[in-house]
């Protein structure tokens, strides 16, 4: 990859809902091929920051940049097109479709077949669709859902739904993937599989933002960690540096 891969940056981001200030002057940089943990107690603004990065909210002040492109006001669809994928705290899937169909939906931005071309089923459309389906099958086997590829999504258990949403994100061939509390409700063995998957993503050059309140899991696999409290950034740095920081411990163990 000749060109230096672009970074996803949030610069002095603030977000107010009416009087309530959810985020106050927060900055965060997400580099390709790096796992960046984002922790903080409930209501600290973690999900708000994630929603700002993924385009569901517009910042009140500050900006979001991908390389030199300013994404602050870009639509969710625009961010998907430039390679910013995300998962949700409560997986948002299509219950009536199979696992394979759900995951293949992720490849939407890369599909060139227009509505009319699809209607008359041009060979290019058929070829492209086959390519997407094959790639997604590989991804699904990769994340460990090989055994349920043709099962309808509403028959999946909680863990399978989480991994399916990750697979859908990967089908978007993202440069960055923002995971919203992926470890929630998983068994320790499943969390182990999750960290292996995240390591594989990192080694293949994808930048991973990990929003979690399973702090030991985050510290174990993150390169760098940012801690938020009441909408402000209180510590940012290497994983073990942040783990031993008195301020972070105070916030987590409670005054």
């Amino acid at each position, binding site marked *: 990859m000749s060109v230096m891969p672009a970074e996803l940056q949030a610069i002095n981001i603030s977000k107010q*809902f009416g009087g309530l200030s959810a985020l106050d002057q927060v900055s965060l940089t997400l580099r390709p091929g790096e796992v960046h943990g984002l922790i903080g107690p409930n209501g600290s603004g973690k999900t708000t920051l994630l*929603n700002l990065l993924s385009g*569901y909210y517009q910042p009140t002040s500050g900006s979001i940049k991908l390389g030199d492109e300013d994404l602050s006001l870009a639509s969710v669809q625009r961010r998907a097109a430039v390679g910013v994928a995300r998962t949700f705290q409560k997986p948002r899937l299509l219950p009536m479709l199979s696992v394979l169909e759900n995951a293949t939906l992720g490849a939407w931005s890369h599909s060139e077949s227009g509505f009319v071309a699809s209607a008359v089923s041009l060979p290019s459309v058929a070829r492209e669709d086959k390519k997407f389906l094959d790639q997604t099958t590989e991804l699904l086997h990769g994340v460990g859902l090989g055994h349920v590829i043709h099962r309808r999504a509403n028959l999946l258990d909680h863990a399978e739904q989480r991994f399916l949403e990750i697979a859908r994100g990967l089908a978007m061939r993202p440069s960055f993937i923002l995971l919203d509390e992926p470890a929630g409700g998983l068994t320790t063995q499943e969390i182990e599989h999750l960290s292996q998957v995240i390591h594989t993503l990192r080694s293949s050059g994808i930048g991973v933002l990990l929003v979690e309140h399973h702090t030991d899991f985050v510290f174990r696999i993150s390169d760098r960690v940012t801690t938020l409290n009441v909408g402000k950034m209180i510590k940012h740095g290497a994983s073990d540096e942040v783990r031993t920081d008195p301020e972070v411990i105070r916030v987590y163990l409670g005054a």
Partner: protein
Amino acid sequence: MLTVIVTGLAIGMLYASIALVYNVMFSTSKVLSVTTGHLSMVGGVFGAYIISVLQMHWLWGLLGAVLAGATFGWLTDVLAIRRVLARSDEHLWLLSTLALATMVQQGVGLWWGTEPKPFPRLITQEFGAGLMDQKFWLPIGMAIVMTIGLEFFYRKTMYGKVFIAMSEDAFAARARGVSTDKIRLLSYVLSGALGGLAGFAAGQLTFAFFALGHTLTLLGFIALAVGGLGSNIGALIGGAALGLLNSFASYYFGGEYQQTIAVGLLMVVLLIKPEGLLGAKNVRPV
């Protein structure tokens, strides 16, 4: 000219009352029910049946209309809303209320006949009363009484406050021990009664006609959308605007384009100010 204003205002107040009924139902269930217009139609038909066919006193007619509306409101909640709200799919309640509304409209058509039948005089009054004729002032009076009544109900009575609590945040209300199902059922029975009342009051203007259901649902909705969802004053303004626009248009350009003009007004307002004149902006999606 004056007759055009008075007729416009009178029919406008019927649309306003239906918009009020939409608000009452929406406050507790976040559902805009297709049966709203049919409540008034049922009120009008039952009122006419009791007074003209059964030859009973108009008070019985009024009671019959309100009861019929209330029962229909109760049916709407039990059949079309309760089981469907349990499933989160947004469109289902739209399908179930449309189904119930169509059944009621056709059922009334088969029973009451398909031609508009005249609505009896309520207060003994000369027919040639022109502008002072009761058929104009009953709906106008009814709409004003309803608005004041609702404001009083929301401000002063305990149930009223619970309604508002539920419309603000149903989840929080449930957390404080409010049985939301019971309250929603109550609000549908109340809105049924109000709808029946509005239909009864405007009966002499609209006649007792089975096909009124869908028309009133649409025109009541336009008054609601123009006035702004959730605001009772908005409903009055929206209803008046729609009524006056229709009567002026049909006087100057002939009656053929009634619906086109009404929907034209809706489209203009929705394009400029989607939440209507006084409506509340809706909150964050995710």
